[in-house]
Each structure stands twice: as structure tokens, then as C-alpha cells.
């Protein structure tokens, strides 16, 4: 195949000094390298955010535990939430999109390579700002502290009077800066998909990964920006004496909630849509069938994107809205279940009658199917306003959204790691270690988050640093914590697998899974230019056409 790397004979590649290698990585504008940087950066923060979660769970393991102080506990859950959403989930998904989308649509790079690098470094700088607050939170005169206003930072907690020092400023700035980075990347992804496709790659032939990245990019444009605007208002309040969220001067704490959740809820969909994309790429390959209902998948995704923009106030049922608002947001929230259900049925339809190969990537996708379904069901429970009045701000809600983010997004991400690692590094991840990782993580996940629903139902509020014994929460909290540790061990196995397989893994070759999208037509890892000659495609599965010239897809599409 002419898309292989051009072989240059008899050239001795000398090992380059590390400083030059580092310089290459820092100044790179190659979409693949930037994608890898995004993912590594996110993995680094995943470990930090995970350690914070473990600390939280140690503190809550027993009633009246004093592993950390109440103040430190507040900082821990604020940092954990902010880190996991803004500096793990967002960059890791952007990293995958950055790496895969241009190759999948047959392009040599993103539309704006330098904007791409700029956006990455903005996001990276945002993460550093958040953690710099540990040193600089009190300015020059104190030992420093971290933000403790929780990840949604409700007013008036962020007002000068209640949040002296600079910890809230570092939080605001880090979220603002990484938000600008996200907008830059979203613009880049959209421009790449609309303007850089290879000949024949019509919109109706794009891999679903590209389609869903397009929708995700569009959502970033209109939902990250309200948060940026609200952060600018908060900065005006804190630095210029403005009154946006200052109730003493007629300002409204309520408006911040709206602005935050106009961002906050669609954000969940920004994170889950790329996970849907991974599912839609991995499930067909390991079921040995093309995706079931391609146009419906695209339509359902766009539908989810639209509906998800009008559900935000279901986070605010307990604030006291009128009954019309309550009904509206309850109904729209439940409506999201319809297109999501369509997608779940389509993945099942893809697997139905297929020759399913239970590789680790596929195991994680099957886990996703079950867990995401349960997460969606508790979501519909919480969308019913009267139910939400009882359980809002309880551990039931915490269990619900961790079910979405860990059981859904993280499982799909792990699947994506096992699926595309051979392409990125040229080596296979170990299946044995992968199975250990999968089963330990499944056991830990269910011990942790299934159990967590019940203290919530029994009335345990979120964000408390400790609790009284004898309320029926003790044993459950212990089980939740043990589950968290098991997940921690599973993640360590995963990280070990990533490191070990880079040197010791089986050599992958171009196309280890016998897959159908363009990234598998080039070498592993792909050369800087991706394709020696720009490919021409005639169907949704160009590599199928290539491998089966007697029965190409293009004949039926």
C-alpha cells in the first residue's frame, strides 16, 4: 500500500540529545504529538485527582475519622472535581480527537496546527494555575491554600468577604484559561472536519468518531463560553468591585447558578459524546459487523446535543423555581433519554448476530453499555422534580454522576486506550494485564458506586467531612472506600501496562484488529505526514473495500 511510510534505506538514525527531543515536543505543531501531549497531561492529572479521591475516601471510611481536617476536606473535593472535569476528562478527549480525527478523515494535520499547539498550552497552563494555588493561594504572606468553594463555586462563597486571599482567583483563572484553550481546539476540530477531508470523504461517509467530534466541537462553542462569561463577571466582582453576584447590592446568587449550569450540564454531554464515538468505532470492529443504523446514530447525537442545552435547571430543583420551570426542565431532562436509548439499542444491534471478539477493548465497551444504562436510569429518577427534592445534594446524586463519568466515560476511554494504543506506539498492550485491569476495575467500581447510592437514599448529604455513627451509613461507607482502593489498584495496573508495553509489548503492525477506518491503513505509529499519498475513499469502510475488492461497501451505499 502506498500509504505506508516512505522507506528511506541505509540511513542511520543517531540517538538525539534529550534536550533536543524535549525541544521538539515543546515546539511541536504535529496533531499526533499534541494529541499525545494532551493524553499524557490528562493522565498525570488523573493520578492527582485519583489520589485526592482516595484521600476523601480514607476520611469517610469510618465515622468521626480525622485523617484530614474539615478545611482540607473542602479543598480536596473542590480540587478533585475541578481537576477531573477540566484537566482530565476534557484534555484526554481532546487528545483522542486531535490524534484520530485528522487521520480518520484522510488529512495530514489539523486545519490550524499552530492554533492547536496554542490551545494545548493554554489548557496546560490552566492546570498549573489551579495547582499553583497551593503555593500562591494566600498571596505573598501566607503558607498558601487551595480553592475550597466546590467545583460549581456558588455565590456568595466566591465573594471577597467569604473567600479572602487568592485561592478562588486561581480557580477562576485556571478554568477561564483552559476554557479558552477548549474553544480554540473546538474551532480547530470543526474546521478540520469541514475543510480538510480527503477526496470522496463525504459527510455521510465519515467515521462516527469524526461526526461525534464535530457535534462535540459545536457544543463546546456554545456551552464553554457561558462559563467563560460568568468567570469574567466573577473576576469583575472580585477585582473591580462589581456587583453581579453581590446580594448586598441587589446582585443575584441565583444568576450564577443558571450561568454555571448552562455550562455545567451540556458539559457532561461534551464528555459523553466522545465516549459514544469510541463505542461506535470499537464495537463494530470487535463484532465484525458494520455499525447498525449509522444515520440514526448521527441524528441521535445531534438530537442529544440540542436537547441537552435545555435541561440545565434540573440541577436547581431545590433552589425553588416555579412549577412551570420545574415541569419544563423535568420533561426535557427525561427527553434526553430517548436519543440516548436509540444509541444503546444501535450498539446492541451492532453486536447482535456478530462474531464478538472479547478483547479487553471490547470488554470495556460491554461494561460501558451496562453501566451507562444504569447511570441513565438513575438520571431519569433524578429528573423527576419531587424525587430530586428528596435526594438532591445527597450521596445518591454523587453516585449517579460518578456512574456516568466513571462507569460510562472512563470505561469507554479505557476501551479506547486498548484499541488505539497499538496505532499510537506500534506495540500491543498486554491482554493479560488488561484483563486484570478490567475485572479489578469492574469489581472496584461496583463495590464503590453501587453501594454509594444507598447512604444517599438513607439521607447522607454530599460534601460532609465526617458523620455520626449508627445511622446505617457506616458499613456502606467502608465498602465504598474499599471499592475505591480496588479501582486505584486497577488503575496502577493500567499505568504499568502502558509503560511496560511501550518497550516490551508485541509489535502491532499496521492493522492489528483487522479494522476498517483510515488510521489503520498507515504505519504504526503513523509518520509525521500521516499518508504518503492522500487517500481516496468510496464508502464508510475504506479498508474493507481495500481488503475485499470483490465485494466493496461502496456497491451498497
Amino acid at each position, binding site marked *: 500500500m502506498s500509504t505506508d511510510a516512505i522507506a528511506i534505506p541505509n540511513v542511520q538514525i543517531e540517538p538525539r540529545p534529550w534536550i533536543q527531543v524535549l525541544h521538539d515536543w515543546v515546539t511541536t505543531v504535529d496533531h499526533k504529538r499534541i494529541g499525545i501531549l494532551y493524553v499524557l497531561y490528562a493522565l498525570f492529572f488523573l493520578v492527582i485527582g485519583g489520589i485526592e479521591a482516595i484521600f476523601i475516601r480514607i476520611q469517610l471510611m469510618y465515622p468521626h475519622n480525622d485523617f484530614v481536617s474539615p478545611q482540607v476536606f473542602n479543598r480536596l473535593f473542590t480540587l478533585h472535581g475541578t481537576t477531573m472535569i477540566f484537566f482530565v476528562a476534557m484534555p484526554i478527549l481532546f487528545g483522542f480527537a486531535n490524534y484520530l480525527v485528522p487521520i480518520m478523515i484522510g488529512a495530514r494535520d489539523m486545519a490550524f496546527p499552530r492554533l492547536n499547539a496554542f490551545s494545548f498550552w493554554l489548557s496546560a497552563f490552566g492546570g498549573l494555575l489551579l495547582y499553583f494555588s497551593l503555593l500562591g493561594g494566600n498571596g505573598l504572606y501566607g503558607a498558601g491554600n487551595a480553592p475550597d468553594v466546590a467545583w460549581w463555586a456558588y455565590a456568595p462563597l466566591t465573594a471577597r468577604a467569604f473567600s479572602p486571599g487568592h485561592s478562588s482567583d486561581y480557580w477562576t483563572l485556571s478554568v477561564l484559561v483552559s476554557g479558552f484553550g477548549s474553544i480554540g481546539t473546538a474551532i480547530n476540530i470543526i474546521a478540520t472536519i469541514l475543510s480538510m477531508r480527503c477526496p470522496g470523504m463525504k459527510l455521510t461517509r465519515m467515521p462516527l468518531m469524526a461526526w461525534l467530534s464535530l457535534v462535540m466541537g459545536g457544543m463546546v462553542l456554545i456551552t464553554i*463560553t*457561558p462559563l467563560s462569561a460568568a468567570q469574567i463577571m466573577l473576576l469583575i466582582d472580585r477585582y473591580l468591585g462589581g456587583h453581579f453576584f453581590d446580594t448586598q447590592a*441587589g446582585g443575584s446568587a441565583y444568576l450564577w447558578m443558571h450561568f454555571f449550569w448552562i455550562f455545567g450540564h451540556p458539559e457532561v454531554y461534551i464528555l459523553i459524546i466522545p465516549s459514544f464515538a469510541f463505542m461506535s468505532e470499537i464495537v463494530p470492529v470487535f463484532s465484525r459487523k458494520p455499525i447498525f443504523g449509522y444515520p440514526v446514530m448521527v441524528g441521535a447525537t445531534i438530537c442529544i446535543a440540542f436537547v441537552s442545552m435545555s435541561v440545565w435547571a434540573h440541577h436547581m430543583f431545590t433552589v425553588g423555581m416555579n412549577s412551570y420551570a420545574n415541569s419544563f426542565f423535568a420533561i426535557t431532562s427525561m427527553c434526553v433519554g430517548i436519543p440516548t436509548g436509540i444509541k444503546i439499542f444501535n450498539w446492541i444491534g451492532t453486536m447482535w448476530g456478530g462474531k464478538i471478539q472479547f478483547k479487553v477493548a471490547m470488554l470495556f465497551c460491554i461494561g460501558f453499555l451496562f453501566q451507562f444504562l444504569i447511570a441513565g436510569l438513575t438520571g431519569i429518577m433524578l429528573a423527576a422534580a419531587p424525587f430530586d427534592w428528596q435526594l438532591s445534594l445527597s450521596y445518591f446524586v454523587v453516585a449517579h454522576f460518578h456512574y456516568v463519568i466513571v462507569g460510562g466515560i472512563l470505561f469507554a476511554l479505557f476501551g479506547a486506550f486498548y484499541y488505539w494504543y497499538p496505532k499510537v506506539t506500534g506495540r500491543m498492550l498486554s491482554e493479560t494485564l488488561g484483563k486484570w485491569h478490567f475485572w479489578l476495575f469492574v469489581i472496584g467500581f461496583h463495590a464503590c458506586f453501587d453501594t454509594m447510592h444507598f447512604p444517599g437514599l438513607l439521607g447522607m448529604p454530599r460534601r460532609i467531612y465526617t458523620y455520626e455513627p449508627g445511622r446505617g451509613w457506616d458499613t456502606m461507607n467502608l465498602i465504598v472506600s474499599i471499592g475505591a482502593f480496588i479501582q486505584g489498584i486497577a488503575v496502577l495496573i493500567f499505568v504499568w501496562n502502558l509503560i511496560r508495553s511501550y518497550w516490551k509489548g508485541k509489535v502491532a503492525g499496521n492493522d492489528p484488529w483487522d479494522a476498517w477506518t483510515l488510521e489503520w491503513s498507515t504505519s504504526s505509529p503513523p509518520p509525521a505526514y500521516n499518508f504518503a499519498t492522500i487517500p481516496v475513499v468510496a464508502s464508510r469502510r475504506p479498508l474493507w473495500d481495500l481488503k475485499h475488492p470483490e465485494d466493496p461497501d461502496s456497491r451498497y451505499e
Partner: protein
Amino acid sequence: MSAAATSLTEIPGAWTLPYRGKVAMACLIIAESAIFTIFVVAYLFYLGKSLTGPTPSEVLETPIFFTVCLLSSSLTVHFAGRSLERNNRGAFLGLWSLTIILGGLFLFGTGREWHRLIYEHRLTISTNLFGTTYYSLVGLHAFHVTVGLIMLLTVLIFGLVGRVGSDQFRRIDVLALYWHFVDAVWVVVFTVVYIVGR
């Protein structure tokens, strides 16, 4: 793969995709619109909620002349682009400079109004809710005008040293798109602040 895969299909003759610059600018405009929407919502939400004066009806004066300046600069920037497309560089530079002058006049108008409000009416960003929302919304717009002017000036400098030719009219159009957006936002801000808000 070209050998095998292309034998299966006709190579699409005219494979044209939208210009990436225009797509990106359209995306940026969508994103910016969302930011402005939030500020407009805040302005409308807080109308009449200030606990102390001054109020909009007491102090605001409708800046008709400067509005006309800004809106007509949309026309000049459009025709500047068309002149460049026809390779009429003289007309391009003239219309481009006129755009900058009109935009600059608008910015001067905003500055003059702020000066009047601050020194005559003692209205600053921290005086009351009206001050906070007014300076934020109008200031956000003025910031965008300023950024636009810097970019227009950069192009003018390159144009004066003869580096802008007809082959670049597509890029110039991307910048013009941004400038149209800045003007369109002013129509919204003007309506909200000077018509609805009083």
C-alpha cells in the same frame, strides 16, 4: 491504498470543501455570540434592580452619530474586500483606512461617553448594578472593537508596504467577517442598552 481503492470508484472530479478560515471565523462568532448573550442576559436581568442611583434613564444619551459610524464601516470593509478581489489596490487601501477611521471614531465616542458618565455622573463599575452591567457589556464590545482595529491596522501596514494582493482577498474576507460581527453585536447592545434599557 490509492491504487486499489481508487480503482473501485471514480475519483471525484471537483472536490471542493469550504475555506477553513471562514469556517473557523464562523465558529469563533458562534462562541463569541454565546459570551455576549450571557452578558446581555445579565444586563436585562438586572435592569431596575440597582439599589442606588444613577439609573440608565437619568444618565444615558443615545450615541446616534457614533452608531452610524460603526455601522457604515461594515459597508466600507465589504467594498474594500471587493476592490482587492478586482485587484484595485488603491481603492482597497482607501476603503480600508476609512474603515479604521470610522471604527476609531466609534471607540472615541465610547470613551467620551464613559468619561462623561464617570466625571459628571459619578457612575463607575462599582457604583451600582447598572454600572457593573453597563460597563461590562459595553466594555466587552469596545474590547472587541479594539481587537478588530488592531487587526485592521496590521493589515493596513502590510498593505502600505505592498504585501496585500488580490490573492489574499479570502483572508481579508475572514477579517471582514469578524468586523461585521462586531457591528452586528453593536446593534444588539444598542437596542438593549439604549432602547429597551431606558
